[in-house]
């Protein structure tokens, strides 16, 4: 299997979530991941792009959400980059803690970590945040 890379640059709008998910689904389909893995990747990508649009770029259409998709024999790697100020993922409350179960938001990062094998964030000093997510084969 060869290594394939695709890059996308999308506007900071809510409908970008569905656009990105469709593009990733097509990429995942070509990469031969299992149906279960594809479901998890879809969930994680939607949450990552939602966060980039809402919390990173705050729906500022002057700013883009950039995705890089890489497929290799070992894994599929997806990076989502926004131009926001960044945040500390360790400070995001655990949505499954008793006091947070009935909160109406705050489950996106939990889903990303649940469905992907690796999730890490890179806060760039020059501005912007990249979340890198890996699903191993």
């Amino acid at each position, binding site marked *: 299997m060869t290594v394939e890379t695709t890059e996308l640059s999308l506007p900071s709008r809510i409908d970008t979530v569905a656009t990105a998910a469709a593009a990733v689904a097509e990429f995942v389909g070509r990469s031969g991941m299992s149906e279960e893995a594809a*479901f998890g990747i879809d969930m994680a990508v939607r949450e990552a792009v939602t966060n980039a649009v809402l919390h990173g770029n705050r729906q500022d259409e002057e700013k883009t959400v950039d995705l890089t998709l890489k497929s290799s024999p070992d894994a599929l790697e997806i990076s989502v980059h926004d131009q926001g100020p960044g945040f500390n993922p360790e400070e995001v409350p655990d949505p499954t803690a008793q006091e947070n179960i009935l909160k109406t938001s705050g489950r996106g990062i939990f889903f990303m970590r649940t469905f992907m094998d690796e999730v890490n964030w890179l806060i760039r000093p020059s501005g912007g945040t990249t979340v890198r997510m890996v699903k191993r084969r």
Partner: protein
Amino acid sequence: MAELNINERQAGDVTVLDMSGKITIGEGSVALRTAIRRLLEEGKKRILLNLAGVSYIDSSGIGELVSSFTAITNAGGQLKLLNLTQKLQDLLTITKLLTVFDVYESEAEALNSFK
């Protein structure tokens, strides 16, 4: 076609919403929120969500289910869920929300539970 279709019917004093499509950020979540707000304004507080046709839900959609549950409970009503797909059941399990919602696989059983 709308992202989320909601068909309303009455079974005694319980309002059943048959839902099909996706409850995701944007249109799907807003459609659920609008439907629940309207029912509460009409004084309909016993609500059964039939989720058999819901193929997909994201964290925003799950947040909207929680928001609906809280709004209806605070209004003195009851919200119950019917016919979860396996994937939705899995998501509610890992988020520990399955312990919060009253979930049924049989509509008759669900309707009886309101009495």
